[in-house]
C-alpha cells in the first residue's frame, strides 16, 4: 500500500486526537481498500466486508484516545479489523476455521511429486520437464486474465492461506505486521504464504497450459 501521503504515526495519532477530520478522511481513503480486501478473506461477500471495515473504523474512533503506540498504527487498526472480521465470519457461518490451529494440511509437497523424476532415475528429484512458459505478463490482455484468475483462485484457497496471502501479497504488509495482526509465528506465517503462493502459481499454470493445448 502506498502510504507516502500519510505523515508519521505520531503525527496522525495526535491529529486524530484533536479531531482533525481531514486527517481521518485521508486515513480511511488510504487504508480502506486494503482493509476491504483483508475483510473479504474472512466474510462471504463484498457487502459484509464493507460493514466490517466500517465497524473497524468505528472501533478505531473508540480506541484512538487510549492507543498506546506499542505497535504501528496500521497494525493496531488491522488487529481491530481482523477481530471484527472474525466475529462477523463466525456469525455468518463462513468463518476462517480455527485460525491459528492446524486445521488444514500444512505439510506435504506444494508441487505434484509426479512432476519430478523418480528415485531410480539418473536425476532423481529433478523436473521431468520444465514448467511450461506462460504468455508475457507485459501483454495487457494476459495481465487482465491473470488478475481475474488470481481473484478466483484466491477465493478458493484454504482460509488461513487466503488471509495470509491477502495481507502479504495483495495488501502489501510485511511479515512482521502480519504475524502481529494474526498472532501467529513467523514460521507459521511463512508456511501459509508458501502454500498459498504455490497453489496460486499452479492455478495459473493449469490455465495457461490448457489455453496452449486448446
Amino acid at each position, binding site marked *: 500500500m502506498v502510504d507516502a501521503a500519510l505523515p508519521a504515526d505520531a503525527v496522525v495519532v495526535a491529529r486524530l486526537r484533536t479531531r482533525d477530520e481531514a486527517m481521518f478522511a485521508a486515513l480511511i481513503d488510504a487504508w480502506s481498500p486494503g482493509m476491504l480486501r483483508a475483510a473479504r478473506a474472512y466474510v462471504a461477500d463484498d457487502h459484509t466486508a464493507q460493514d466490517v471495515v466500517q465497524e473497524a473504523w468505528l472501533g478505531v474512533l473508540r480506541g484512538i484516545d487510549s492507543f498506546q503506540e506499542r505497535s504501528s498504527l496500521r497494525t493496531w487498526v488491522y488487529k481491530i479489523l481482523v477481530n471484527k472480521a472474525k466475529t462477523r465470519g463466525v456469525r455468518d457461518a463462513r468463518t476462517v476455521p480455527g485460525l491459528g490451529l492446524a486445521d488444514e494440511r500444512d505439510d506435504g509437497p506444494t508441487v505434484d511429486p509426479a512432476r519430478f523424476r523418480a528415485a531410480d532415475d539418473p536425476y532423481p528429484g529433478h523436473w521431468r520437464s520444465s514448467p511450461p*512458459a506462460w504468455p508475457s505478463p507485459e501483454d495487457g490482455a494476459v495481465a487482465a486474465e491473470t488478475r481475474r484468475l488470481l481473484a478466483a483462485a484466491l477465493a478458493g484457497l484454504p482460509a488461513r492461506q487466503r488471509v495470509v496471502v491477502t495481507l502479504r*501479497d495483495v495488501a502489501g504488509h510485511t511479515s512482521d505486521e502480519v504475524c502481529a495482526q494474526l498472532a501467529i509465528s513467523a514460521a507459521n506465517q511463512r508456511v501459509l504464504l*508458501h502454500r498459498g503462493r*504455490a497453489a496460486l*502459481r499452479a492455478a495459473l499454470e493449469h490455465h495457461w497450459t490448457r489455453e496452449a493445448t486448446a
Partner: protein
Amino acid sequence: MNCDEFVELVTAYLEGTLAPETEQRFVGHLAECDGCDRYLEQIRVTVAALGRLPEQGLDPDARDRLLAAFRDWPAG
C-alpha cells in the same frame, strides 16, 4: 540440491530467511537449472500480479457516515 527441494524453499529464499549454507545451495541450483529458474520467475509473476488486483473503495455513503461519526465524537 534437487528441484523438488528447491520449489519448497522458494518462499524462504524470497523472504531472506534461508540459512547461509542453504541459500548458497539454492542459488547454485538456480544458476544451473532452467526449470527452477522458470518456477521462481513464475512465483514472482504471481506475487506481482496479486499486488495489482483491482482495489475497491469504501462506499461513499459509508465514508460520509464515518466522517459524521468522527465529527460528533466527543474530544478525548
